[in-house]
């Protein structure tokens, strides 16, 4: 492939809220530039994973190269670097941004800006990216392009006329977007003749080819077969293949300055060349690596246990395989008295947790039991030692605890004016500390500092339901703060169930305990015996409910005509029982272990009275 002048290259990404049409726009760009023919067009091509398509979200960043002949008659190389749209994956966004000179800011012309878009827009501005604002879905009857164009123009400091208006669905206006990418986004400005420096913005593990790094070359060039090294990891490898996604992987001889593409490294472990590393050549190494990213740390933890104990090795293998391609997923063995052998897993957030769990169940055919998610606590013991506690069961005896610190996040919520009161009430109930409030477009942006533990439960659902779906949320980790936290135990038929323990704020312990035992009473079906459910701190019982004993369990009738049918009914019942977890003599359905997520709001808002 011939050397492309940098001024003919444009690297850009798309910033958009979920459902605002990023994938549709990306598809349309691929079609319009001829990268993908009508026949080859699959709906939302870039969201390739099954789960991603199902949920309409993007998880992994990807880069696609297309060719575009602009009005000036020149052929340009456009590299579209995809970005995820969910708060759990905001670190992936920052990775994409660092590989680009510009971003399309896509906003639904009927919805306006959402909190995550806002957060990512600020990220983009901080990264000196040129923003091309695009109002999408102008074909919708509810679209208010003039209103939203004015607001966006003010937000990012452009003229309202500079806000493009398109319908990715019909294709209307997409041509203008391509023209704007070429006209407004600056070309890359690295040193094509300097020592090679290429930023790894994503990497995947391929069973046959080893680690494949997606990279943006800033300076110099990467040639196929050249000996290379990772400047941070020190790993040495050969570029077994260099190439670009068109969107199908297409080998090239080289990747030059300003270009984005992939390098097949043959490395056996993803840890050998992590995202954020800088690739250089061993023949003429660069002296300074490119600025990387902060280490991605899991924020939410839960225990994953196989329903069938025999599946433990299969679960371990499956986690190993998933972690190969997901640096943010952590796992360590955990033993629960109630649930047996499993793993304490770390995730970026609840969505990430859901996705990992769904992939384990679906792609690896495992039946899993998940415990209530929690955050990571820093516990200082009376002897001065500090440990990180990721499972309630690991919390030391109260007498040995000097202090417990919990992660706080800065939480930004965009909400229409009439929802401000509801949001403030919710945030206060969840121990939020008010920071600021300012108008953005026709809405208010509320900023609270909140314990992350209050968000990982049902905060997002509550936020949506209290604002009729109009509020949107973004958050980032702030710091750790000391809180009076205690371990709340749940006892079934008198025996503590370690997998149901929670770490909660002392002042909320009783309400949570009460709500949790109530939720459990509703979840646990009647048994042959009465089952008391208790919530306790140490030996102090805070709340009690009872699952009443069954008083009748018979099959109403059974005559000659329905013996087989009744036998099959028994088989189905048995199958249902097998999905239950047997804790002592009590059969507990799997949902029970997530009961804390379904605690009704009534119980929590008790703090207000």
């Amino acid at each position: 492939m011939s050397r492309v002048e940098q001024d003919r290259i444009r690297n850009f990404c798309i910033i958009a809220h979920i459902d605002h049409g990023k994938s549709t726009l990306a598809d349309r760009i691929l079609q319009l530039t001829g990268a993908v023919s009508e026949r080859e067009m699959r709906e939302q091509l870039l969201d390739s994973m099954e789960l991603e398509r199902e949920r309409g979200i993007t998880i992994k960043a990807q880069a696609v190269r297309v060719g575009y002949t602009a009005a000036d008659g020149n052929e340009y190389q456009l590299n579209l670097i995809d970005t995820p749209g969910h708060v759990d994956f905001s670190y992936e966004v920052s990775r994409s941004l660092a590989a680009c000179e510009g971003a399309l800011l896509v906003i639904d012309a009927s919805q306006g800006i959402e909190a995550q878009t806002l957060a990512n827009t600020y990220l983009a501005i901080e990264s000196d990216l040129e923003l091309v604002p695009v109002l999408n879905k102008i074909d919708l009857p509810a679209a208010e392009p003039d209103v939203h164009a004015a607001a966006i123009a003010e937000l990012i400091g452009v003229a309202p006329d500079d806000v493009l208006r398109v319908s990715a669905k019909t294709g209307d206006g997409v041509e203008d977007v391509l023209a704007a990418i070429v006209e407004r986004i600056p070309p890359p400005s690295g040193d094509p003749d300097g020592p090679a420096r290429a930023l790894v913005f994503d990497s995947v593990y391929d069973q046959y080819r080893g680690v494949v790094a997606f990279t943006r070359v800033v300076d110099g060039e990467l040639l196929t077969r050249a000996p290379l090294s990772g400047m941070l990891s020190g790993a040495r490898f050969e570029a077994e293949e260099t190439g670009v996604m068109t969107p199908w992987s297409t080998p090239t001889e080289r990747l030059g300055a300003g270009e984005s593409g992939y390098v097949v490294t043959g490395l056996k472990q993803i840890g050998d060349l992590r995202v954020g590393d800088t690739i250089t050549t061993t023949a003429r190494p660069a002296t300074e690596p490119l600025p990387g990213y902060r280490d991605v740390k899991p924020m939410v933890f839960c225990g994953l246990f196989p329903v069938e104990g025999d599946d433990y090795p299969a679960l371990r293998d499956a986690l190993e395989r998933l972690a190969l391609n997901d640096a943010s997923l952590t796992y360590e063995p955990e033993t629960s008295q109630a649930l047996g052998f499993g793993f304490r897993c770390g995730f970026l957030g609840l969505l990430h947790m859901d996705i990992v769990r769904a992939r384990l169940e679906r792609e690896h055919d495992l039946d899993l039991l998940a415990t209530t998610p929690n955050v990571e606590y820093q516990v200082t013991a009376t002897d001065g030692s500090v440990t990180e506690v990721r499972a309630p069961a690991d919390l030391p005896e109260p007498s040995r605890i000097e202090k417990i610190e919990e992660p706080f996040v800065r939480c930004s919520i965009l909400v229409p004016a009439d929802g401000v009161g509801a949001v403030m009430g919710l945030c206060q109930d969840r121990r939020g500390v008010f920071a600021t409030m300012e108008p953005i477009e026709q809405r208010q942006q509320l900023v609270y500092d909140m314990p992350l533990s209050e968000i990982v439960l049902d905060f997002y659902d509550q936020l949506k339901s209290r604002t009729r779906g109009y509020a949107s949320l973004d958050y980032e980790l702030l710091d750790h703060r000391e809180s009076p936290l205690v371990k709340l135990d749940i006892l079934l038929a008198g025996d503590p169930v370690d997998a149901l323990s929670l770490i909660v704020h002392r002042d909320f312990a009783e309400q949570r305990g009460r709500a949790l035992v109530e939720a459990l009473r509703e979840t646990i079906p009647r048994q042959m015996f009465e089952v008391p459910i208790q919530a306790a701190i140490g030996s102090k019982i805070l709340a009690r409910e009872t699952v009443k004993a069954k008083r009748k369990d018979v099959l109403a009738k059974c005559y000659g005509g329905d013996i087989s049918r009744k036998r099959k009914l028994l088989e189905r019942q048995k199958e249902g029982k097998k999905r239950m977890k047997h804790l002592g003599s009590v059969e507990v359905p799997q949902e029970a272990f997530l009961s804390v997520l379904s605690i009704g709001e009534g119980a929590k808002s008790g703090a207000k009275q």
Partner: protein
Amino acid sequence: MSVSHLYLHSPFCSSRCGYCAFVVEVDALEKRDAYLEALLTELEREEHRLGEIETVYLGGGTPTLMRAPRLERLLAAIRPRLAEGAEVTIEANPETVDRALLESLRASGVTRVSFGIQSFRPHLLAALDRGATPEQGRAAVECARSVGFDSVSVDLLMAAPGQTLDDLEADLQDTLALAPDHVSWYELEMKPGTSLERMGAPTADEDVAADMYRRTVSALEAAGYRWYETANFAMPGHECRHSVAYWSAADYLGLGVGAVSTVGSERWRNASGVDRYVAALGRGDDPLRHRETLDDDTRRRERWMLGLRLDGPIALSWAGPPDHPDAVDRLVGAGLLEASNGRLALTREGRFLQNSVLHELMEYA
């Protein structure tokens, strides 16, 4: 191996009741003659399996809609095979019988009538789409008694949509006032495909349903009935021998559309659809049948499932071992089971939780 229990199915009904998921045909009375011919043909084809017949059960549908002449022909066809003292039961809806029909049935050898009363409360009868009034129900029972049947039985329902404990109490009193020889009292099952289910009728509260069941058992027992099966009650000597044969896992032959037979390790169900049934037998073929082979484990598990329904003990020598023998001590300790001399019996409390006990003892997979 000869079979001594015979079931004959009549699929015709004048309307479909709200809770019914059986193989019935509505508005098809013109097919009765052809159906009778086919049924008699199937009887002829299967006759080689029959020994002396101990019990016959004419079920439906609404068998009484076949009317006297056809029923007489059917009963005449089996009469030569009946054992001395055989039990011959017919199901009947009160609004479909009169004295003449009952006398004809009695004369043709029917010994037992089972009336589908379901309730004496007009609003519940309406909710269940039943065609008879409470008065018709009472009159039918009185008439059958005066005609001289050995046993008169009534079917009733509990946990029907909208039924209160007071409604049940009133039904109990009305039932006892009629003094039937036998009572079947079922909890209404909301089955998929029934109109009640489609209308989204509420299922009874778990506690209310339990109260109703327990109240029914104690009221009938107090009046002298024996609670001889999960949902069946009889004055001494009036137990339904045909049903007891099912619960004892005996072999039986079932003829007619949708009827099931079990002979040894073979079970088959005739397919539904009167036209298809009539056509096949007219051609000289067997009706379309769904067959199932029962292996030893399946039969053992069925013996436990059926045997625990009865009030007598289960002999391990008959039923075979339970899959979880270790559960026996636990269940005995919990007061749900009694064990002695190779026999297991549910306690009274255990009978209310029969299904839970069954799952503790047995695997169904």
